[in-house]
């Protein structure tokens, strides 16, 4: 009989406790802090639903904000005289050529390179009986290369991103290395080893504080690993950097033909 009493009592306590818990949980949507509010948010993160109800629709408004900054390229600026466009892009457009921007890269002092390079193979390579057409794409971004000029940053910074495909696996004794080439002086600047990914794809991302102006091409070679000779080995892929349209340098007479 004692055990039956115990069970009944514990069930009663459980009921009382759950009732309190339910009560606290329903009170918990009043504020932001506290355990109950956190639990409520974790349970239902869509507070718009809780606050406005299920029939609420977000108004189609707030898209005409003004006041552009140097970081916000899609804004319609109040001070822009060159492009006073009637719409503003509110989503990042990336490299979309139709994107609306108030940034004119040709105004004085703004020096920026953003170009893509297609790397073509030197020789045909076979792997497991199949012809593998090795190819790569490099993207070169440079900014801030003109010291003390307008909106430029004082320290030049450049970034090179390379994605390769169908480069044959080399084993443990060799490794692919990427280079920037100055064809005038036949100088190749090592920018790092490629990291292999899945399915014969590999990539490299490299950034440094330097202008990309002297360089005419991007190259990928095979190097012994480890290597005691820092000079470039056998060339596998090679791609010339096309002249950048949007580059303006403050003293164009000293710039190479490709960058004017």
């Amino acid at each position, binding site marked *: 009989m004692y055990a039956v009493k115990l069970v009944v009592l514990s069930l009663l306590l459980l009921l009382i406790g759950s009732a309190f818990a339910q009560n606290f949980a329903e009170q918990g949507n009043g504020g932001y802090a506290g355990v109950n509010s956190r639990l409520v948010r974790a349970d239902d993160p869509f507070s718009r639903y809780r606050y406005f109800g299920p029939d609420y629709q977000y108004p189609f408004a707030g898209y005409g904000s003004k006041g552009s900054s140097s970081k916000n390229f899609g804004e319609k600026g109040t001070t822009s005289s060159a492009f006073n466009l009637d719409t503003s892009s509110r989503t990042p457009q990336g490299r979309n050529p139709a994107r609306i921007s108030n940034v004119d890269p040709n105004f004085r002092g703004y020096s920026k390179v953003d170009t893509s390079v297609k790397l073509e193979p030197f020789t045909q390579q076979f792997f497991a009986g199949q012809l593998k057409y090795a190819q790569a794409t490099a993207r070169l971004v440079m900014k801030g290369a003109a010291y003390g000029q307008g909106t430029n940053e004082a320290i030049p910074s450049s970034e090179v991103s390379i994605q390769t495909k169908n480069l044959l696996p080399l084993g443990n004794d060799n490794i692919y290395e990427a280079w920037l080439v100055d064809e005038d002086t036949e100088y190749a600047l090592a920018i790092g080893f490629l990291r292999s990914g899945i399915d014969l794809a590999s990539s490299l991302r490299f950034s440094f504080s*330097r202008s990309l102006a002297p360089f005419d091409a991007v190259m990928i070679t095979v190097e012994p690993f480890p290597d005691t000779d820092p000079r470039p080995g056998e060339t596998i892929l090679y791609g010339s950097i096309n002249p950048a349209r949007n580059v303006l340098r403050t003293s164009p007479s000293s710039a190479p033909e490709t960058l004017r």
Partner: protein
Amino acid sequence: MKLLVPALLILLLSISVFAAISEGIATSAKVPIRLGVSRVSNYEPRLHLSTLNQFVALQPTYSVPTLGVGRGGASNYHPRGSARVRSVASYGYPSAQVTLKTKDLPSSADVRGQFEVWLIDSETGYRLSLGTFTTQQGGVADFRYVADTYLNAYDGIEVTFEPLDDVDITPGPLILYGFIKPPE
């Protein structure tokens, strides 16, 4: 009924005791600690390049003449720098960092020029350009280079003077230089 609750407790406790003493169930206490030659490790020494990690003091190639302030003596300005060259292999891939700090170099605004950092391999004559930096008053610069490469082949570090609008990769006049000891 009175015995039910203690019996249940004893049963539950006995399960954990059984797990602790039985042979078939592995717990962390049962893994033997192997030391010495029998130690199991995932370290692969053949993948490991010799690590390069050293500080290099950079000496100037010129001296600033005493400007005659006060009673004379040594020049107030002594162009100098220090570099830390680090090159390791991690998970089979190399990674390298170079940090360089300078003091009392001429300021870029005064001389209308910038400075370029090079690593030199005297055996092959190859020069690796690490990048450029500019200085302000006091000639202070803090330069950093990070790359997926290794720098074991290089035995010298140099800072050269370049024009601000530098479209020529060839090095300009030498300003600071230092030597990297070869790794063991």
